[in-house]
């Protein structure tokens, strides 16, 4: 089975009786960058954990290459599906190389030391992300952007073709955000399938083949970004008037509407998802 497609269909999940996801469906194929866009509390993180097999859904099913995710042994799943968490601090000063080598765990097994080949793969991943010079630096002492690169390098070292990234641009400066988006595009061109959550509609336009909009636990739209991200949909999603604008060179940018202050306040509840779902 080479480069299988991941598909979540009609996922339903609730925490303590509060519905977080209902009938959420999403697909990820190799070669694609898919962005998952949603307001705070829309259920993005829950959907991500379910797609990664970290949380069993209460309804619906996630399949990888047609086979239910729950039928995969964890180690085999790790060979197909890699998780790139939000940049975090670790308590121990592992070197960047050690962090990347952890990606070889599913391949070597839990108890074997990484061999020569594993080290070569880790070096290649470091080189691919242009952080070979950081290999010996402690992960605790590099910048947020460099840590994000190290975590992506670990995912590449894992050998999985599908990467799931949780808000990869968070905490990165503007230059690093753009570099990250370009990197994701080029990884997709190499055949990786990439699913990321984001809070930036502009990042969706700059990098994605598809965008899925998650609102109140439901995917309300899924398709090419320029088609999906209309003024009406984005304004409704974020509760603020938003105006996608076409630049003279043909590119689309997402901006808050200039006259947004004059919108009636009732149209914009601050946390629409929680208010509606708890009713």
């Amino acid at each position: 089975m080479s480069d299988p497609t991941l598909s979540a269909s009609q996922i339903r999940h609730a925490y303590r009786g509060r519905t977080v996801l209902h009938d959420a469906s999403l697909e990820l194929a190799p070669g694609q960058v898919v962005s998952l866009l949603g307001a705070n509390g829309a259920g993005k993180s829950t959907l991500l954990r379910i797609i990664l097999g970290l949380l069993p859904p209460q309804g619906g099913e996630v399949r990888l290459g047609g086979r239910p995710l729950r039928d995969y042994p964890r180690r085999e799943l790790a060979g197909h599906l890699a998780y790139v968490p939000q940049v975090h601090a670790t308590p121990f000063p592992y070197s960047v190389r050690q962090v990347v080598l952890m990606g070889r765990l599913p391949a070597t097994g839990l108890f074997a030391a990484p061999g020569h080949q594993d080290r070569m793969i880790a070096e290649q991943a470091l080189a691919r992300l242009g952080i070979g010079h950081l290999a010996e630096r402690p992960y605790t002492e590099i910048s947020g952007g460099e840590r994000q690169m190290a975590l992506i390098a670990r995912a590449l070292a894992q050998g999985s073709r599908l990467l799931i990234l949780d808000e990869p641009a968070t905490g990165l400066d503007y230059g690093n955000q753009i570099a990250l988006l370009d990197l994701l595009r080029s990884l997709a061109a190499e055949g990786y399938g990439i699913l990321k959550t984001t809070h930036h509609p502009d990042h969706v336009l700059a990098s994605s083949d598809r965008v899925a909009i998650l609102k109140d636990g439901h995917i309300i739209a899924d398709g090419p970004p320029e088609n999906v991200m209309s003024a009406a949909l984005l304004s409704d999603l974020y509760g603020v008037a938003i105006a996608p604008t076409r630049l003279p060179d043909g590119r689309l940018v997402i901006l808050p509407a200039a006259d947004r202050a004059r919108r009636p306040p009732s149209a914009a509840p601050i946390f629409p998802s929680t208010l509606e779902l708890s009713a």
Partner: protein
Amino acid sequence: MLPRSERWSLFGLSPVLIIVVALAMLGALCIGRYPLPVHDILRFLGASLGLGDMPAAEYDTLYNLIVRIRLPRVLAAVLVGASLSTAGAAFQGVFRNPLVSPGLLGVLAGSAFGAALGILLGLPWASVQILTFAMGVAAVGLGVGIAGLFRGGGIVMMVLGGIVSGALFTSLLSMVKYAADPYNQLPAIVYWLMGSLAMADLGQVGALAVPMLLGIGLLVALGRPLDALTMGDDEARSLGVPVRSIRYTIIILSTLISAMTVSLAGMIGWVGLIVPHIARLLVGPGNALLLPTSAAIGACFLLASDGLSRTLTTTEIPIGIVTELIGIPGFLLVLGRARKGWL
């Protein structure tokens, strides 16, 4: 040149660690009220292996001094120091906190209560030791059980459960002390809680050596999945690590060997907290090397502490006091040199 963290492989490191511990043991056999030169020990070793000759009277004297008096303490120091240090390093990884010590989940409080209760009840020494071990395990079981009452609590609930369990057994210990005969039992309890290797005898050390070394070995084998565990539960799972079973296995193994140290030598503090930091400065944070290095340094640390406790004054100072007195400035030095990022 390879970076500091990868200069060694376990294959290359093990002989170095074993030689260092063996030399420290040889040194520890020399020191005491009657200092022995190294060549006497080596001549005795040769004679007992049938490689050399020695007058019978001298052989008997040396046999008495080396094998019957010093060897049990030296072996006990190695086992206790290695166990506490390995358990401490493993706990620091499992709980993602470099300031954790093996007593976090209440094992030392439980064992202390078990020992005191055994002394209060006037049990034979072997039974006191079994009770010590059992209460240490029971305290951790209670702490983890309390954590289990709260669904999905994770390691934070476990730490809180351990605090509750530790507090309970500490108060039970106070009750036992209060009830104990103040002329006879109370001093025995208090001395035991200060830690001592003086009660170790060869048979008992031999019996505990197998499970303790086995526990240390199994923890070392879990070093790589433990590395992934320090990055977070979801990350470790996505790397194919069965998080819950690895975490519980490490907690169980660490608890068993920690409880055995109290059975063997009473309460010896600071070793399990400070030694992993020294080891981390030497070989980096990768647990596959950190755990065996901690074991070796812990063994040497306790041999040195025991040497001081036997020789500093004419009467022996309880070793728990010595480890604390060395441990505190040692810890401050380590804090100053440690890599930043976790404080």
